[in-house]
């Protein structure tokens, strides 16, 4: 792998400095192709001055079918500047794209031409199983000392899920991350507070609990994840389990404050068994102990059962289903996707315990089917969110996970990607020029040079 003579220019010591980065000219979005051939990775034109703005420039098709590509991440990012394991002359160059179903990880080269991607290596499921004992890779984060990847479970489809490490030079699986996992069994997302040597993980379900769709029996018993786990990052040990309550089902996206001196963050809960509401919680450090408090609750909306998929007809309501959240680099705005009701919300979280709603947009939704100004009715809802580094642009896609898409949108979810403009003072508006629609589905989006969920920082 090439070594640079100067630090990679896309690495920034602090989130504040990263906000001065030039705007992205391309965005990368995962293409999911349910039952119709291989998945892929699309390159979108994000340069507002370009004639092709808001359109797909090219797409890379994977060599296999049925991967179910989902989340992805960079081989290296601003954390390479962290002083205790500095290696800033590595290039931000490769996208690591795991297949959530196949457990393969594609290593995709974005250079020399970020618009013409190619696969340079494939990490096979067998290597992950042999060296780490894990399967179904989900989140990847470029860490200060390696690439961290979370996995939903083991090769047999049961738990425990956890984290494994890839070498950032060779992309070989280095092994399981946890030395002592304590009571942790379910896994999903993870991220960290580098300034506090602390890693957090969240809980969804084991592969067997999620792969055939949401299982109402497990759900009604409160069997999906309802905890977050706190870990000592350098010592790789479990420190604390925090239970949000068994009625809080599926604790997904973790968004710690980007400022490494701040010890708080936000996590979204998909649904509550009590009233189908969704919620966002703030975790925080107090007197050496991590605590959590519910700060946003979004109620379910009553609905005519005839407009609902079979799964929800008995409830006579649409659950908001908060499936993704994202935090701007200045830790000021929190974005919340309600995939069920088709609402996308912006909150001012300057006071992390008292979020104030500052923006809302409707797109899709199980009942509402809200249209983009230039589209007919949309299905699916705001799901994966990505925020540009200076915080002025927000990208949304609508796919969740194939078997779940089919349960909640049984008419056949059709993919779309839109871009919103975020007012620095608060407020959201739809960018009319940016609309991608397809028979395929789209999942996570990342931006050229980094974005609000790709990098972590060791300096305030």
């Amino acid at each position: 792998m090439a070594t640079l003579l100067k630090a990679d220019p896309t690495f920034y010591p602090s989130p504040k400095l990263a906000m001065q980065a030039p705007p992205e000219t391309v965005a990368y979005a995962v293409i999911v192709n349910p039952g119709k051939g291989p998945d892929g990775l699309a390159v979108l034109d994000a340069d507002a001055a370009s004639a092709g703005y808001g359109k797909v420039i090219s797409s890379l098709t994977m060599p296999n079918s049925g991967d179910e590509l989902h989340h992805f991440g960079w081989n290296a990012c601003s954390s390479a500047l962290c002083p205790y394991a500095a290696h800033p002359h590595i290039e931000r160059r490769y996208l690591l794209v795991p297949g959530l179903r196949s457990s393969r990880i594609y290593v995709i080269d974005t250079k020399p031409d970020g618009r013409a991607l190619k696969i340079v290596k494939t990490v096979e499921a067998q290597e992950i199983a042999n060296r780490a004992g894990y399967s179904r890779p989900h989140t990847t984060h470029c860490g200060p000392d390696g690439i961290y990847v979370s996995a939903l479970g083991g090769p047999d489809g049961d738990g425990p899920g956890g984290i494994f490490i890839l070498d950032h030079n060779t992309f070989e699986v280095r092994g399981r991350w946890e030395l002592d996992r304590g009571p942790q069994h379910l896994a999903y997302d993870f991220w960290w507070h580098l300034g506090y040597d602390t890693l957090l993980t969240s809980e969804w379900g084991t592969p067997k609990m999620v792969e055939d769709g949401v299982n109402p029996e497990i759900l009604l018993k409160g069997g999906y994840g309802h905890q977050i786990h706190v870990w000592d990052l350098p010592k790789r040990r479990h420190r604390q389990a925090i239970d949000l309550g068994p009625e809080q089902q599926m604790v997904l996206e973790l968004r710690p404050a980007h400022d490494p001196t701040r010890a708080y963050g936000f996590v979204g809960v998909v649904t509550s068994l009590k009233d189908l509401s969704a919620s966002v919680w703030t975790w925080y450090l107090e007197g050496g102990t991590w605590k959590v408090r519910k700060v946003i609750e979004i109620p379910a909306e009553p609905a005519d059962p005839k407009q609902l998929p079979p799964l929800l007809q008995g409830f006579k309501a649409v659950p908001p289903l908060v499936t993704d959240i994202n935090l701007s680099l200045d830790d000021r705005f929190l974005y919340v996707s309600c995939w069920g009701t088709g609402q996308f919300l912006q909150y001012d979280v300057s006071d992390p315990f008292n979020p104030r709603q500052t923006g809302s947009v409707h797109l899709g939704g199980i009942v509402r089917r809200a249209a983009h100004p230039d589209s007919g009715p949309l299905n699916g809802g705001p799901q994966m969110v990505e925020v540009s580094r200076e915080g002025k642009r927000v990208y949304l896609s609508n796919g969740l996970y194939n078997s779940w898409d089919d349960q909640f949108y049984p008419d056949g979810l059709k993919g779309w990607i839109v871009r919103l403009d975020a007012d620095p003072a608060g407020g959201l508006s739809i960018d009319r020029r940016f609309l991608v629609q397809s028979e395929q589905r789209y999942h996570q989006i990342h931006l050229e040079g980094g974005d609000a969920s790709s990098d972590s920082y060791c300096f305030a």
Partner: protein
Amino acid sequence: MTRWWWPWGVLVLLGAYHGLNPGMGWLFAVARGLQERRRAALWQSFLPIAIGHEAAIGAVVVLVAFAQLVIAPQALRAGGAGLLLAFAGYRIYRQQAHPRGFGMRVGLRGLFGWSFLMSSAHGAGLMLVPILLSLPPSGANQDLGLVAYAAGLSPWEGLLAATLHTAALLAVMALVAVVVYERYGVAFLRRAWLNVDLIWTIALLGAALVTLFT
């Protein structure tokens, strides 16, 4: 005995070079100060980092001193050169190598351990081998006219070499860290962080040649 001072001068320059390298200490000190938002956290970092470095150098000095007692000078030079070459080769093979298992909250003992490992893995001590071998034999041996392999480093000379080198590192590291922390901030790293490791690898190769041919 002209230019008796040159090995000492090189020792100081190499120490200063480590002091300038962001990956060897000053940046960690600055990060700790920024993270804890207190100047004391910055100042407290210097000594553990310096002592860790001195320990790594000291280990090599002791090895060289013992080796001089039992190995003929020419063989020692060849062996030292071989080690330097092998180490430079390893650094070319693993260009992005860095320690693992550390974090922002390692504490002072952790800083010492980190600095010891970092300096060892960097070959900071190994780099001094040609210089240690060039230091004039200790006075007592000279008086007796013993110029064969008994004429090695005295313990005092070794300690002085390691300490002088580390003092240069400490002075430069502290100066850079304080100026960055108090005045400039870390933004300039984006442009100014040259690949000093690459230069260092070339220097290791140079040191191997010097050892072999002087």
